[in-house]
């Protein structure tokens, strides 16, 4: 056969592209209604420029190659790191909070045989310049709103925190990251505010979510820990029963911009629009 594309990337015919464009428009409406502005960073970046923020996981997943001068380049593996680079350099004097959103592809290598896309389309936002439970509640609410706007209502948001792993020995942290509850020795608690009674910050996030009734979508999960090295506080994942996968993930990364020379707290999330496939919800 001729004119085929590599595994993990795909063509979009007009009828396919229409579905994706409609989704992008819906999510944009939600983000813009809350005062977020669109931003676009390049598909290609210098590997060394992003490496400082990427951490081990992205360094492994990122697709890298060399330019004509022998400089290592990388295809953007996520949006948060490039946006942190940009805000820390050319946008540091902007009014805070700076509210940005994007709708663009990310590129990741996956283990052979895993049916994951190399290129996937993400829509997401970054709320930069404030470290408060209210900011986190607002970002989680926007994630819920985006799902609802897309017509996906069988959703739940699991909330974790980097504190959950803080006092655990390294072997148990690794067990949590792998989802290996046998090595961990127990099933992590999951529930409403009763499982985070010891955590004032998360309790106020929950209070914030009660204001718009979105607390009903939210579960605290003491097993939700991430390997992405940039998270520094609350972490969350949104998933849907009909899709049976995590469709949104995000959290707080208060140290990431500092790695690019500008100390400024931030929180955000990305929604995987490609994971929604071509079936209409």
């Amino acid at each position: 056969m001729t004119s085929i594309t590599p595994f993990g990337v795909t063509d979009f015919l007009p009828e396919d592209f229409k579905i994706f464009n409609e989704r992008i428009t819906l999510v944009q409406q939600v983000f813009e209604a809350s005062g977020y502005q669109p931003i676009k960073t390049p598909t290609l970046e210098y590997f060394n420029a992003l490496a400082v923020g990427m951490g081990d996981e992205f360094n492994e997943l990122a697709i890298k190659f060399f330019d004509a001068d022998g400089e290592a380049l990388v295809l953007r593996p996520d949006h948060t790191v490039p946006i942190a680079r940009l805000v820390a350099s050319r946008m540091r004097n902007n009014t805070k909070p700076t509210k940005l959103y994007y709708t663009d592809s990310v590129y990741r290598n996956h283990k052979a045989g895993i049916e994951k896309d190399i290129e996937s389309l993400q829509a997401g936002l970054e709320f930069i310049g404030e470290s408060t439970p209210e900011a986190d509640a607002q970002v989680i609410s926007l994630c819920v709103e985006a799902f609802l706007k897309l017509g996906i209502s069988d959703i739940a948001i699991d909330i974790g925190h980097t504190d959950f792993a803080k006092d655990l020995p390294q072997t148990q942290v690794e067990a949590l990251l792998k989802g290996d509850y046998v090595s961990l020795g127990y099933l992590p608690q999951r529930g409403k505010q009763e499982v985070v009674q010891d955590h004032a910050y998360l309790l106020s996030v929950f209070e914030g979510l009660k204001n718009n009734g979105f607390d009903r979508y939210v579960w605290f999960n003491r097993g939700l820990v991430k390997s992405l090295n940039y998270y520094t506080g609350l972490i969350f994942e949104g998933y849907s029963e009909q899709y049976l996968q995590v469709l949104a993930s995000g959290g707080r990364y208060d140290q990431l911009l500092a790695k690019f020379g500008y100390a400024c707290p931030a929180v955000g999330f990305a929604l995987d629009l490609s994971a929604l496939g071509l079936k209409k919800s």
Partner: protein
Amino acid sequence: MKQTLTIAVSKGYLLKEALEAFNRLGITFNDDLNTSRKLSTTDTQGLITLLQVRPWDVPVYVEQGAADLGIAGLDVLHEQQPTVLRLMDLKFGQCKLVLAAPSQTAKTPLWPHMVIATKYPSSTQAYFLSKGLKVKLIKLYGSIELAPLTGLADMIVDLTATGKTLQENQLSIVDTLLESSAYLIANPVQFKVKHSLISTWVKHLQSVLV
């Protein structure tokens, strides 16, 4: 509506032990999968569907969400590294993943560029990488014990429960890569969607298996 559970179980001896564990929980199935040729059956209450699949396919069913839970050997999980939650060591189906060699070579130290036949290339590769030894791997799908006898390989990496097959083919254990047993695994999203059902169920299972 009552939530239901779909459980993928390896054919063979794990299935037998799993059915016994279910019986102890008071769960009985409409068909006896040990004798019937059906590949799936539902319990008498209509809440649990059991899928009978190949041992190597259990993690796939669970990872993709076609089954909520699965019962698979740790050897298979170790080899495939699927994105599933490991909920419980069920303690049955115990066996070992071993490096074995013809009795006369079993006592000599491992050497570089030796040829290893196995059904477990990833586990074997990880083992020899940790030893800093470059070896040649040959992937086989069965009758691994034949490989050293026929000159296909110097040694093998394979699963053994009693050691009998190894013995009968004049092979001795050189080293143990992994102690394996049956694990209860879950699809990460289904574990959240059916969280209270699955965690209650795990507790019950723990209480009858100790």
